[in-house]
């Protein structure tokens, strides 16, 4: 292993992020589909549960978070599987730039293309369920801090299942149990605002989770990609 220049690492992150963002921009409809799925799942709950505004206001943060979890699962196959299928992921793994940096760039692009739009759409969902302004803000802030961690957990799962027979159901089984804390803290942030407590504790934990994910995620995901090519 040769020592890597920190500037090289940043360049690799920026390059991979730019490449994947460009690819995402070239297939806008797929990105839009994830957003439509998010709103669709959210809209199903009042139909299935009850249109009672009081009840909906109480369960809205949980619904929004579950929908965000499912939507983030839906977009995961695009993270590595397409590059795996056409062979470019193998070239990236062989490239002189550190794989962890390339993976970090890819995950950043994935979050910008799939996670961030969900965060921006969340206030709309909050309005649908009649959330107060403060609760809605806590929900959106929670998603902003929590979705990057979801992207990292998903990236590890997506890399581990590359080229396996089981496909997306296996990915859900791997990722969803690990995402439980994010769901609890994220939905808890909005809920504690709704009952008059501050969201600070929940948001701090989500932020801490995001930092841990960004520190350890690149190495774990890069290792997972390497394992796929052994």
């Amino acid at each position, binding site marked *: 292993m040769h020592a890597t220049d920190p500037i090289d690492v940043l360049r690799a992150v920026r390059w991979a992020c730019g490449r994947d963002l460009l690819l995402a921009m070239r297939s806008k409809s797929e990105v839009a589909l994830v957003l439509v799925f998010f709103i669709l799942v959210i809209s199903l709950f009042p139909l299935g549960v009850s249109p009672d505004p009081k009840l909906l206001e109480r369960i809205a943060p949980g619904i929004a978070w579950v929908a965000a979890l499912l939507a983030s699962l839906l977009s995961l196959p695009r993270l590595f599987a397409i590059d795996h299928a056409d062979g470019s992921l193998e070239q990236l793994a062989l490239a002189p730039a550190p794989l962890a940096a390339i993976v970090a760039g890819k995950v950043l692009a994935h979050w910008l293309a799939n996670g961030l739009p969900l965060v921006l759409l969340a206030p709309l969902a909050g309005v649908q369920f009649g959330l107060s302004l403060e609760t809605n803000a806590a929900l959106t802030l929670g998603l902003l801090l929590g979705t990057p961690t979801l992207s990292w*957990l998903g990236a*590890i799962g997506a890399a*581990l*299942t590359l080229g*396996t*027979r*089981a496909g997306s159901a*296996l990915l859900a*089984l*791997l990722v*969803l*149990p*690990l995402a*439980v*804390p994010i769901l*609890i*803290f994220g939905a*808890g942030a909005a*809920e*504690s605002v709704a009952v008059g407590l501050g969201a600070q504790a929940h948001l701090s934990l989500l932020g801490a*989770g995001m930092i841990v994910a960004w520190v350890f995620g690149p190495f*774990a995901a890069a*290792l*997972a990609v390497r*394992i*796929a090519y*052994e």
Partner: protein
Amino acid sequence: MTKTGISWFRFSSPATFYPLAGRLVPWFGTAAAVLALVGLYLGFFVAPTDYQQGESYRIIFIHVPAAWMAMFTYLVMAGWCAASLIWNTRMSAMMAQALAPTGAMFAFVSLWTGAFWGRPTWGTYWVWDARLTSTLILLFLYLGYIALRSAIDDPRRADRASALLALVGVVNVPIIYFSVKWWNTLHQGASVSMTAAPKMAQTMLVTMLIMAFAAWFYTIAVALHRVRSIILEREAHTDWVRALVQRSPQ
């Protein structure tokens, strides 16, 4: 590796570990059976009836050891997984593979017996209590590990991929436990709490410990037995397995 004393790395080779495991299985199996018999006898005939819960409390002699083993087995499994990733030893990965079904079984048993205990005691089969929920998630972690293993055809890749998954899982287990605990206490006061149960009588505690050791030895015996099958399956191409099979045709 040191030249003096027992070289433990000698047993990291399947060819040397296979006969060792074969010699150990009867010992641990017998110990598990004897302890389970003693524990069940004490649990059903000697331990006093609980003055609050009546006879139904006796299920804890299965339930608590199962819950302990489910958690402990995941830690041991993750330890083997770390060893297999670090030293790239086949035996470690095979041990992890052999432990997973037993751990999942104990997680399931603890949930199932907990439901049967909860019905007469709490009046419901299931509550979203912190311990119940985190054991359920632990069961899902086991199932994910087993499913990922079986989805990958190449055994070496399956070893490494599932090892990484187990390590990510073991980092997450305490986070999951505390988040679930906190989630529950935020939602509602602890309407049912296991810590508020009356202090256990001496016999009950001793019986539970005996059953815990029975579960422990059972896990070791079953894992060693299973790892022997895994060795035979995965090393079928080697000369020593061929010679072994020829010597004892079944």
